[in-house]
């Protein structure tokens, strides 16, 4: 059994879970400016309140798992992306605290609203920038980062930053549709299609730009069997888009979110296909980056037992808070 591969798969799944869960979470903050009424904002925050801590814990697990299992990736990539990651966590702090304090404040309520919007959008943007910089490759020698301090700041990373903002906005909007009803839900349905369109544009541009700027990616995409295996993906994306348009028009409850999920998974699969088989694109492969065998065994033993339990009670938590959020259930009681 190739433990490195198993771990890579677990981490890839963990990141996907994070992107979906904290994605809709942050996305609610991104579309927040379109809903200025305080009582609607109470509902939007109410949909988040019981679950956001858990969603963000996946980010902590991601960091810890990289630290333990792929220490080279953790140390080299994180020091290369020093500033964007610092800005990301600073934004996450602002937004996390605004979630708790908005309901407790009176005069400063608007400031916390702003912190929630800025924190959510900012955290997403810097996450997207980090993703773009990572995809472009990080210069590493002897396991240490040797590039420029501002190497992450490129037109491509700006693009992926905005692309991720669009992705999370769509996820957040679709999630809110499942949690709301009436007029608020109707207006949410109305912005689903524009958001989908924006996301599609970003997906196309990134898919065209990536092979153009990186020779080895282009070689992998077009030479081997990859091309034919990935060929269905654009068609699936197109089908999703058509279905999404219909679902928004006939105002379905959960279908938009399901479709948004499929879109995210397709995009994510494309990214994985681009990165494979590297742990740090174009410099370190997964096997070069892995921790010693004993650590892989030690951590995998625990993960195999505990992760399913975590997934089970996370699902239970979502099940407890299923259905629409209502005003009489907001607050801590």
């Amino acid at each position, binding site marked *: 059994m190739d433990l490195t591969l198993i771990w890579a798969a677990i981490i890839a799944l963990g990141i996907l879970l994070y992107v979906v869960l904290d994605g809709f979470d942050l996305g609610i903050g991104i579309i927040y400016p379109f809903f200025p009424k305080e*009582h609607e904002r*109470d509902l939007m925050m109410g949909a988040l309140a*019981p679950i956001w*801590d*858990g969603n*963000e*814990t996946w*980010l*902590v*697990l991601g*960091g*810890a*798992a990289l*630290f*333990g*299992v792929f*220490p080279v990736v*953790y*140390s*080299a990539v*994180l*020091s290369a*992306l*020093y*500033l964007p*990651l*610092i*800005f990301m*966590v600073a934004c*996450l*702090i*602002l937004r996390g*605290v605004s979630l*708790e*304090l908005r*309901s*407790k*404040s*009176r005069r400063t*309520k608007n400031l916390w609203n702003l912190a929630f919007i800025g924190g959510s959008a900012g955290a997403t943007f810097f996450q997207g920038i980090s993703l773009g910089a990572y995809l472009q490759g990080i210069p590493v020698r002897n396991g*240490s*980062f*040797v590039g420029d301090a501002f190497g992450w700041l490129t037109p491509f990373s700006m693009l992926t930053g905005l692309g991720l903002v669009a992705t999370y906005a769509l996820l957040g909007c679709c999630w809110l549709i499942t949690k709301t009803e009436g007029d608020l839900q109707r207006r949410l349905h109305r912005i689903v299609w524009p958001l989908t369109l924006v996301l599609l544009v970003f997906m196309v541009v990134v898919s065209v730009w990536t092979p153009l700027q990186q020779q080895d990616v282009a070689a992998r995409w077009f030479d081997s069997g990859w091309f034919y295996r990935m060929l269905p993906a654009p068609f699936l994306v197109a089908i999703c888009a058509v279905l999404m348009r219909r679902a928004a028009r006939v105002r379905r409850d959960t279908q938009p979110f399901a479709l948004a999920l499929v879109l995210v998974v397709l995009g994510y699969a494309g990214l994985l296909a681009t990165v494979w088989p590297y742990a740090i694109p174009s410099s370190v492969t997964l096997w070069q980056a892995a*921790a010693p065998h*004993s650590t892989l065994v*030690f*951590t995998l033993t*625990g*993960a195999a037992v505990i992760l399913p339990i975590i997934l089970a*009670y*996370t699902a239970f*938590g979502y099940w*407890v*808070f299923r259905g629409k959020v209502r005003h*009489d*259930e*907001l*607050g*801590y*009681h």
Partner: protein
Amino acid sequence: MFSVDALTLARIQFAFTVCFHIVFPALSIGLANFIAVLEWRWLKTGKTYYKDLCMYWSKFFAVAFGMGVVSGIVMAYEFGTAWAGFSKFAGPITGALLMYEVMTAFFLEAGFLGIMLFGWKRVRPHAHFTATVLVAIGTLISATWILASNSWMQTPQGYTIVVGATGAWHLLKGRRDPAVKKTFSMAIGLLLVLAPIQAFVGDQHGLNTREYQPAKIAAIEGLWDTEKGGTALNLFGIPDMKAETTRYAVKIPHLGSLILTHSWDGEIRGLKEFQPEDRPNSTIVFWSFRVMAGLGMLMILLAVVGWALRWRGRLYEAKWFHRFALVMGPAGFISLLAGWITTEVGRQPWVVYGVMRTSQAVSPLTTQQISLSLMTFVTVYLVVFGTGVYYLLKMIRTGPSIVHDDAPETGEQSARHTVSQPFATANR
């Protein structure tokens, strides 16, 4: 001479972010367990003030926990961003342990927190109680990991004493309702249980440190020469790193050996046995340790006096004692930070004792990068945690079970009453 390099800045940044972070988990560990006890009492006795207290401290808990989560994300990423040398080297061990902590503790806490805070109407009382207990267990597991990763633990009483101070404040203000009385007496009772446990853990930690990090112990004690036939304890003094001596020392013969080796004339190695570049800064840790230990003693004193007063039935009337409890409010956190400083400064110049120096652990970053990030952190933390603490203090001032005095409100009006949220009234 006085140039600030990237390493210094990285160290300042790490110390700054850690000090902010650990206060909140410390708060939530004690708080979650206290809430679990309150809820258990409520289920057992059916007395509403237990539930009111439960609700009140839950609000407090939510804020503290949220701050712990977000400042914890910083910690999870700071090792890689700023301390790449350390991460690459220690990842297979430290990273693996951190991962276990996340999987066993953080997820458990975060997973059931939602039900604990918002699930009152969604699940039955016993299921709710289970969720609360699981959150409390999660905090305890994380406490174990904190302990495993090498710090003096001052955590549980740190919180208990805040609860005690809250009770004392309202007693001084003249409130005598059951909620306030319960808050105060339960806090003092808990302190009576926790403080001796703390003393025991601290003692064990001392024995362990003497064995594995002898230079740290020598620095803490301000001990320069290895003395034969029993080492004295320096009660006070000012260790001078240059002159290799502790000035104005007030000594008690044999006490040092007695505490650290549990024998009358056990040997403790002095600082001179270590190369000057391998010595931690004794001036700092000597005092940070004494602040921690002194406050620990005062907390035990508070608990014992409180117990005596309660035994004589004067716990709710002795004003001087309430003032004492109020003043001791921040003691838990001060001693927590002092303990942390002792541990971390005492470990210098090593990041992994005897194996890797701090200067080898830092990432290849420029001074500008770290200055920028440090400024970001200082600004964000001061604004965010400043207001967070402000709201927590405001909550303390309002006190528990104020809901009894309020008429029920609807959600629309809730903006007016911010601290005494109206929602609890719906449950009565």
